[in-house]
């Protein structure tokens, strides 16, 4: 009989994740992408009217997009692909490590960076005059879900990425569908249908959840916090569903197309 401990060892995963973090810290460019770059969007909080929710929401949405795309998506993609190229993954799979442990350990350093940065954003934003999150639970859930979704995107992209260099190109589609929502958010006179369609992209769902969960903003044009804690839950349903759907699709595609060694 196989127990969960047979299929997934937390001890092994954390140990491997630690060594992946060591490797990340020894690669200067990867380290900048993973840990330094995501802090920059917080500088946006210094712009515009102090404490205005719309300014705060803009900065936090941008930060979320950056932590989802760099420490999680791009970092996990390039780490996985380069380990695969170096035959490290194939070597590890001859040992006791299970596949899920290898995947989790590669994602963990970036995931932890993302979680820490999203938590740090709260006191930093508060110090710069922003209100505390209206629904901290929703904010925390968003962080975890965004990390899982973008890690899944990374493993799916890895299936058709030949090398770490090729990742610069193959990552474009996901970067595009992640960015298009937040980028078009501020366009005032967009047709309702187009806005509706864009709200189905992963980036738009993240943007909606930040605006709802932290700033209590009701709808895309809202400038002032109006939603109560209870109202934020009902408003969050649709974007949460969008994230769940994308994550499901990414996981299914990643599982189906997973490759552990370079193409012959």
């Amino acid at each position: 009989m196989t127990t969960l401990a047979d299929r997934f060892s937390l001890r092994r995963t954390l140990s491997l994740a630690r060594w992946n973090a060591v490797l990340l810290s020894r690669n200067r460019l990867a380290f900048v992408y993973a840990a330094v770059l995501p802090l920059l969007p917080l500088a946006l909080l210094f712009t515009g009217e102090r404490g205005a929710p719309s300014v705060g929401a803009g900065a936090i949405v941008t930060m979320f997009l950056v932590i989802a795309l760099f420490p999680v998506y791009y970092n996990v993609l390039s780490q996985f692909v380069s380990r695969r190229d170096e035959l490290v993954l194939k070597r590890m799979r001859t040992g006791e490590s299970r596949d899920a442990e290898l995947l989790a350990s590669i994602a963990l350093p970036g995931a932890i960076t993302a979680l820490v940065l999203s938590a740090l954003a709260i006191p930093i934003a508060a110090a710069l005059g922003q209100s505390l999150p209206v629904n901290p639970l929703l904010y925390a859930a968003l962080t975890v879900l965004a990390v899982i979704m973008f890690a899944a995107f990374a493993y799916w992209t890895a299936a058709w990425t030949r090398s770490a260099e090729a990742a610069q190109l193959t990552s474009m589609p996901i970067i595009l569908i992640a960015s298009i929502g937040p980028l078009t958010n501020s366009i005032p006179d967009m047709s309702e249908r187009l806005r509706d369609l864009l709200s189905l992209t992963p980036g738009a769902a993240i943007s909606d959840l930040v605006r709802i969960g932290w700033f209590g903003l009701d709808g895309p044009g809202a400038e002032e916090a109006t939603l109560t804690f209870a109202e934020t839950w009902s408003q969050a349903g649709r974007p949460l569903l969008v994230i769940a759907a994308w994550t499901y699709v990414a996981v299914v595609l990643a599982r189906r197309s997973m490759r552990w060694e370079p193409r012959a």
Partner: protein
Amino acid sequence: MTNNPDSTSAVWVRGLRRTYGQGASAYEAVRGVDLDVPVGSITALLGTNGAGKTSTLEVIEGLAPATAGEIRVLGLDPVADRAALRRRTGVLLQRSGFSGDLTVRETLRMWSATVTSPRSVDEMLALLSLEQRADVRMLALSGGETRRVDLACTLMGSPELVILDEPTTGLDPESRREVWRLVSGLRDGGATVLITTHYLEEAETLSDRLEIMHAGQIVRSGTPTAIAAGHPSKISFVSAAGVPEDLAGVRRVVHERDRTTLETDALQTSLSDLLAWAAHNRVELDGLDARSPSLETVFLSIADGRDPAVSAPQDIETPKEGALR
């Protein structure tokens, strides 16, 4: 779960086939392999490049699924019983895979954390003579040193079954002998070793049993001596007029450039007759060479397709008479 049909085999394979690709581009690398690796033996899988050795091992290691056939490793299924099996096996892949930015010691510490009951990192560094290189990053190591780190990982869990895919390719002669000593030591410690190589000397020196693979099939099995036994001995010399070639025991005569080679089933008789003739006629046989059948003879005849026991692979069609017109 089916038990190993033969509990004296650490690896038991029947009718293994492995095909790459699909449709018209499909290529069958393994074409019906039966293999037994007796517990406590060193069994060498010998073959030219492309014979299907690695493709066979990858299935035994559980890294790739078989297209057809039955495989039992220590009585278990390499894919379904992966977790149980990995604790008891040590694998060395044909090509090493390490992150260049970790040092030797760090690499071994990382591997050690994945092993259920690992031998200590210091012990492994000493065993593979890597103490002096412990704090060097992997990317700065020579090919031979990298291979030794890889072997340290393979052996760290004190495996019952060790599977080594060309462990000495790229090593200098001294390191190669070191690896041989290590592998022999494993058997003496009670482990079973399955090793692939294309070095005949290695196979002959190390192994208790040989499995010679050619074009996806095992074409010869047995001890190195038994395998060589059926093959003729050879006497060769620089061709000279008048030398008798129909000596007792000679079954074939080959004239190649300026050399004559006599293949004989009775080396001593043929050679005595030849030397007697030479002495009687006061003839000096230039470049005289006589040798018993060796693994090399067998191997080369298989690789050249001259071995009568080896049929041509089925998908290579011999053009029929008239087909070329």
